[in-house]
């Protein structure tokens, strides 16, 4: 069974290949994503994140989930040399970058706890793949309908951070001298989607040095595509790009 819904402004797809699958687990997973969106979206007037930013919810009044995300945000900021920061330059709290991977990971846990083994959860191109080997294509940032790598992924997370925006003419209006990254996309394979996603986000923000950051991380591999169409892979990446028979 396979189902897609648009939540948090992106397509979320769940596919489960076990024989004992039923519609109930899909309902449960999608309503969980809805719940996460209601709570963490900085674009919703009533979300807890918005209320925190407006000073209407104090530190002691935060929900357990919010406390967990705050804690994870702090930790992630530390281990990424400050590159992953949920506080915007305007001082607003926006944990969206962390919440996505965390929510996919929790959704996968829910499916697993329902006794299901062979499935994936994909939210906007960030994936947790379990049980069997799944064929994951890395999208060509120059040509959306094309893949430039085929990965064979099982019990791991794959996340891509990037932009399809490029060229020297496109610049940051708040800082005219700084052009947007020379890197178009950075795909990270990690032990789970939470880990893959947060390190993909942080490494992408590092620009060309990002792939070296992934290279140094134990248990992670990466593939970076720059504006000239050059792909750079970490030393252990190739093993995921070989067909599993």
């Amino acid at each position, binding site marked *: 069974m396979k189902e897609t819904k648009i939540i948090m402004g992106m397509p979320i797809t769940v596919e489960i290949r076990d024989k004992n699958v039923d519609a109930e687990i899909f309902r449960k997973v999608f309503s969980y994503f809805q719940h996460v969106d209601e709570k963490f979206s900085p674009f919703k007037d009533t979300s807890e994140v918005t209320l925190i930013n407006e000073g209407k919810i104090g530190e002691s009044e935060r929900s357990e989930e919010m406390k967990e995300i705050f804690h994870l945000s702090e930790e992630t900021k530390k281990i990424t040399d400050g590159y992953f920061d949920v506080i915007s330059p305007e001082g607003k709290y926006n944990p969206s970058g962390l919440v996505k991977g965390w929510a996919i990971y929790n959704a996968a846990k829910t499916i697993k706890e329902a006794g299901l083994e062979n499935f994936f959860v994909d939210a906007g191109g960030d994936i947790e793949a379990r049980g069997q080997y799944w064929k994951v294509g890395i999208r060509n940032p*120059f040509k*959306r*309908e094309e893949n430039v790598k085929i990965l064979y992924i099982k019990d791991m997370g794959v996340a891509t951070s990037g932009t399809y925006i490029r060229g020297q*003419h496109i610049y940051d209006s708040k800082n005219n001298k700084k052009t947007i990254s020379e890197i178009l996309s950075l795909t990270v394979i990690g032990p789970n989607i939470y880990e893959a996603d947060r390190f993909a986000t942080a490494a992408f923000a590092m620009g060309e040095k990002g792939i*070296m950051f992934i290279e140094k991380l134990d248990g992670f591999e990466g593939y970076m595509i720059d504006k000239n169409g050059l792909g750079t892979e970490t030393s252990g990446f190739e093993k995921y790009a070989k067909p599993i028979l």
Partner: protein
Amino acid sequence: MTKTIKKFLLSAFVIISSVFYVLFQRVGNGPNFSNNTGAGLATRNSISQNSSPMVSANANYKDGQYTGTSADAYYGNIQVKAVIQNGKITDVQFLDYPQDRRTSISINTNAMPILKQEAIQAQSANVDIVTGATDTSQAFQESLTSALNRAV
């Protein structure tokens, strides 16, 4: 005295070359909205529009500057301004895009291994799932499309 003249000539040369360089860049490298026929990799400084039915490469726009709506990219908002000259898009400027990260970092780049590099190549389309950064580009297209709709 001759030293001063030399200096003056040198700086004049540098200024003139810079101006020519900038002009050349503007004429030669303006972003174009190609439909990416062929390999798709040869179109540097272009923005792929394969899946967007709304932005046409042949459209003749009215000259001016058009600001698009602010589109939700989930990680933040995207808002662009399209600059049209002689009926063509000559520049796309970002008024807003998601940025919630600090820009300074110290990474030790000593003793780094050399990583394998290759030109990206099209692979089979037969996959279960696709990984890619979709959010921002969708919001980008949304904002740009609304800017261009104002330019028609």
